[in-house]
């Protein structure tokens, strides 16, 4: 490593924020002051309540850890229904209600080859443009 280069923190899996149920797999890890989440599979009606509880726990964990950013990688998600999308909106709404100094940023990652992801991530970004960015893998 040369002068001026900063070592990337190795991600540490957060076991209590990982689960696989009803076709949805959620992996959560922490790297420095950033939480990283990877969703894969499908997020549909059967998993909505579990997903809502997970996002509430993630929000608490981000606050307790003083995270500056949560990276939410949805690029491997085959589909998400409106009910689960609403779980994300509730999470974002909770974030918006925090004092600015306690808020963290959200970065959604989507697959550019999956049209619904582009449209849905854009809809979520518009909900809180100051806090949300969208990275699209081409």
């Amino acid at each position, binding site marked *: 490593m040369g002068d001026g280069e900063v070592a990337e923190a190795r991600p540490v899996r957060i076991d209590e924020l990982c689960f696989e149920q009803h076709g949805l797999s959620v992996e959560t890890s922490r790297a420095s002051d950033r939480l990283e989440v990877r969703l894969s599979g499908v997020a549909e009606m*059967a998993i909505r309540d579990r997903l809502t509880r997970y996002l509430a726990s993630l929000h608490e964990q981000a606050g307790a850890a003083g995270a500056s950013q949560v990276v939410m990688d949805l690029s491997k998600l085959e589909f998400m*229904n409106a009910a689960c999308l*609403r779980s994300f909106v509730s999470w974002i709404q909770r974030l918006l209600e925090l004092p600015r100094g306690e808020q963290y940023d959200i970065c959604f990652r989507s697959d550019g080859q999956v049209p619904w992801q582009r449209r849905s991530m854009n809809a979520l970004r518009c909900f809180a443009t100051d806090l949300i960015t969208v990275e699209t893998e081409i």
Partner: protein
Amino acid sequence: MLGVNLSDNEKVAYVEVSFRPNVELISVVRRFVSDFYARMFKDADATSRVALATHELLENAVRYSDDGETRIRVEVLNPDPKSQVAAIRTWNLATPDHVAAVKSLFQEMTSNTDPFHHYQALMRRTAKVVGGSGLGLARVRAEAEMELTYEVHDGVLSVAAKTRAEVI
């Protein structure tokens, strides 16, 4: 039921499925419909939009079916030589309360001419609401960019979505 008639100027192809409400079947039908439209359309975007709409319409129909029966029909129409239309229609027996909720939502959508603005407003309004919010239909209008209509006959609610698309 499946029909294909490439020489017919009005109805290029259609698929109709009836089943008893089973949440897990919704994904099966969405994937089946995606494959169906992927064979008919040139662009993946149209296929994705129609698949999204299929899932949301079907989920509503299954969730609110009053007698356990749900029916869906997806078709490609050819109203004139230069255009193609993808159309989805679901049917389910609905309670008067659900019919009233759907009617109210459609009135709201009619008065909000910008689908995306309405979708965002509904997101804000229902962020912490438990239960039905109408977000699925608003999503079909805004994200899938499909025109929505509904009809009620003898207690059977029918919701339809359609959009123009290119075909192979």
